[in-house]
Structures are given as structure tokens and as C-alpha cells.
């Protein structure tokens, strides 16, 4: 096969660690991979609002409530930055949402787990957003410009998410024995789903190598998972909590060895049969349908006034 000038230019950009921009030529596989990854990332942000949003009305204090509202609002923003980045690749947000609503595109299976106590909200912030930071910081150097820029914006906001979760966890751990137990139970529930967030192990990850070659991924799933464990165990120690892995131990090389994720256990959650899968999508579809009258009204107005209305020229 002939290598075209376009392909050569693309390869040169990627190998020089420069950014590919929306109107550059790019291989179809690169475009498809990015659309899928960015869309799934966006879906995870907005579905991820649900397990925490569930606790806004029940937050234990006004301070915690204000923090949680701000955090959940940030996650909506993350979804919007990402849908915007996906749209630069020639897809429409409405179509991506349709794929989410009909189960044809996925989101992180971790969000299919419930948040039965306030400590689960704390654990999601501490562990879930901590994992998100590990995943997303390398993506700020992704070869696709709009995705990288969206990630830079997201990462600036994530650090507050992780800290507020850790702080809420620390408050519980300094509380009554029952409160501390609540924190431990939440850690026990979330530890494995969060490790799962990093994706399948390297041997099982089909597209990993190609994504690395294209500069979309910078580190493998297992490398990032290891970094997360190394960073998080001392934090759990500080809180006086026990990581639910009997084989966890610090090796001489300074890294923690841990039990590999049992992927069979998560097969259901990943394939959309997790404890809350149906509920999450149903809630999302309801929210979308509840907004239909607003879209219809705006469309009726545009029909009547045309472009003038959209531009606000009449004002």
C-alpha cells in the first residue's frame, strides 16, 4: 500500500509529539478510536453524577451539601467539555447520547454500584476521583489537541474532588466507632470497582498497543493501576483503614503487590448488568425526556424567527 503524503504528515506529527487538530487528515481508525474513547469518557462523567447526586439532599451538613453540589456540577461540566471535544471529530452530541441511552455505547462500570451510605460518597471522591486523576493527567498530553485541552481543564478541577472526598473520609474516621466502620465498609465496597476503572489488564487489552503508538495513551492500564495503589495505600494507612486485599504488601522496590482484579466478578457490571445499570440509564433517559418541551419550544421559536432568533439580533 502506498503511504500518502497525508499519512506521512500525520505520522510525523505524532512521532514529533505534536498535536493533531480537528481539520488535519487522520487515519479512520484513529478518528474512530478517539470518538469511542471520548464519548465513553463523557458518558462516564454524566452517569457518574448519579451515585453522588443521590446524596445531595441528604448531605450531613450545609457545608458538605454545598461542596457536593459544586462537585456534581463540575462532573456535568466535564461531560460537556468532552462531548464538545468529540464533536470536533464530526459526530453530534445528540447522536452520542442516543447511543448511550440505547446501550450501544458504554460508560465506566464502577458507576453501576450503589451509594448506600454517606461514606460511599466520601469514598467515591477519595478513590474514584483519585483514580480519575491518575488516568486523566497523562491524557493532557494526548496527541489529539481538543481532547488534551479538555483534559487540562478537567484535571484542574479534579484535585478538589479528591480532597473533599478524603476530608469527608477523615472526618468519619475521627468520629464514633460506628462512623469509622461506615468508612471501612465503603472502602471495602469501592476498592475493587475503582481498581477496575483502569480497564482490563494489559494482556487482555486489545487496542492498548495501537492507542499507545498513536499517542492517545501514554501508559498502560496496569501501569496506571499500580501507580494508583502505590499512592493510595499510605492514605488509607493515614486514615487508619484497611485495604480489603489480604495479599497486599510493600515490596523492596517500593511498589505494592496486590491481588489481580477478578474480572469474572465484574463481567456483569461491565456488560451492563451491574446492580444499578438499568436504573442509571432509565434516570438519564427520563432527564433527557423531561427536557423535550424546552427543545420543542426553542425549535418553534427558531421556526418562526429563523436565524435572527438564534443570533439574538432581535434583542
Amino acid at each position: 500500500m502506498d503511504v500518502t503524503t497525508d499519512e506521512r504528515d500525520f505520522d510525523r506529527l505524532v512521532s514529533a509529539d505534536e498535536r493533531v487538530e480537528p481539520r488535519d487528515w487522520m487515519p479512520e481508525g484513529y478518528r474512530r478510536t478517539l470518538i469511542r474513547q471520548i464519548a465513553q469518557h463523557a458518558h462516564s462523567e454524566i452517569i457518574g453524577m448519579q451515585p453522588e447526586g443521590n446524596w445531595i439532599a441528604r448531605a450531613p451538613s450545609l457545608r458538605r451539601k454545598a461542596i457536593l453540589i459544586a462537585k456534581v456540577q463540575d462532573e456535568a461540566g466535564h461531560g460537556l467539555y468532552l462531548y464538545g471535544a468529540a464533536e470536533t471529530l464530526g459526530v453530534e452530541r445528540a447522536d452520542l447520547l442516543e447511543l448511550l441511552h440505547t446501550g450501544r455505547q458504554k460508560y465506566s462500570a464502577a458507576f453501576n454500584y450503589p451509594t448506600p451510605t454517606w461514606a460511599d460518597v466520601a469514598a467515591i471522591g477519595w478513590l474514584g476521583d483519585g483514580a480519575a486523576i491518575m488516568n486523566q493527567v497523562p491524557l493532557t498530553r494526548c496527541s489529539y489537541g481538543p481532547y488534551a485541552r479538555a483534559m487540562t481543564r478537567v484535571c484542574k478541577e479534579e484535585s478538589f474532588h479528591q480532597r473533599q472526598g478524603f476530608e469527608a473520609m477523615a472526618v468519619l474516621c475521627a468520629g464514633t466507632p460506628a462512623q469509622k466502620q461506615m468508612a471501612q465498609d465503603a472502602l471495602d465496597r469501592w476498592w475493587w470497582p475503582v481498581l477496575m476503572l483502569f480497564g482490563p489488564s494489559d494482556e487482555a487489552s486489545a487496542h492498548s498497543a495501537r492507542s499507545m503508538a498513536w499517542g492517545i495513551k501514554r501508559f498502560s492500564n496496569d501501569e496506571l493501576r499500580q501507580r494508583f495503589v502505590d499512592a493510595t495505600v499510605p492514605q488509607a494507612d493515614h486514615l487508619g483503614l484497611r485495604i480489603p486485599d489480604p495479599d497486599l504488601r510493600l515490596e523492596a522496590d517500593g511498589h505494592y503487590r496486590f491481588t489481580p482484579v477478578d474480572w469474572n466478578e465484574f463481567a456483569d457490571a461491565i456488560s451492563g448488568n451491574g446492580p444499578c445499570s438499568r436504573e442509571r440509564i432509565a434516570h438519564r433517559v427520563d432527564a433527557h425526556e423531561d427536557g423535550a418541551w424546552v427543545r420543542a419550544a426553542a425549535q418553534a421559536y427558531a421556526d418562526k424567527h429563523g436565524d435572527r432568533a438564534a443570533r439574538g439580533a432581535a434583542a
Partner: protein
Amino acid sequence: MTPDGAAPDRPRADRLWEVFVRSRRGMSHTHVGSLHAFDAASALLSARDLYTRRQEGVSIWVIPSAELTASSPDEKDSFFDPAADKPYRHPTFYEVPEGLAHL
């Protein structure tokens, strides 16, 4: 498919807008991303909520993406060639005797 069932020949209510934010007085507006909105006023409100939740800006511009004209179909063609062979436009092109100031 058009979102929310607008026929292709009808004007589209839901449009994409590009957002530019002036981070503080004395700086230019910089492109920060895009968003969907029905009109200019709602685009501004959404831009405020989406891009300036932490005082990232003191002024916002929004423009319908479809009305933005860009230089060329890709970012590297001959459009910028005329500037490539004129090094004499840069001060570094010139020899300056050593020890002289204000030159």
C-alpha cells in the same frame, strides 16, 4: 439525524457556539471550547456556567461555530508560505556591533 426532530430545511434551534474568555483585564479573549445553545443570550449564560465557575474570566464572547471562517482546510498548507522566506522581518537577521546599547 438532527437533534429533537428538526427537519433539515428548518432553521436549527440547537446550534454549536465557540466560546472565548478574557481571563483578566489587559489580556485578549482566548478560545476555550464550544457549547450547544438556542440563542446568543443562552449561549452566554451557559458559557459562564461551563467555563468560568472558578473566576476564570472577566468577559466572554460567543459566536455560532458555523459563522466562523478559518484559514484553510488543514493547518499547514501554502497559506502561510509567504512568511517563510522573509527572515529580514526579525531583528535577529541583523548584525549589531558589540557593546552598543538601545539597538
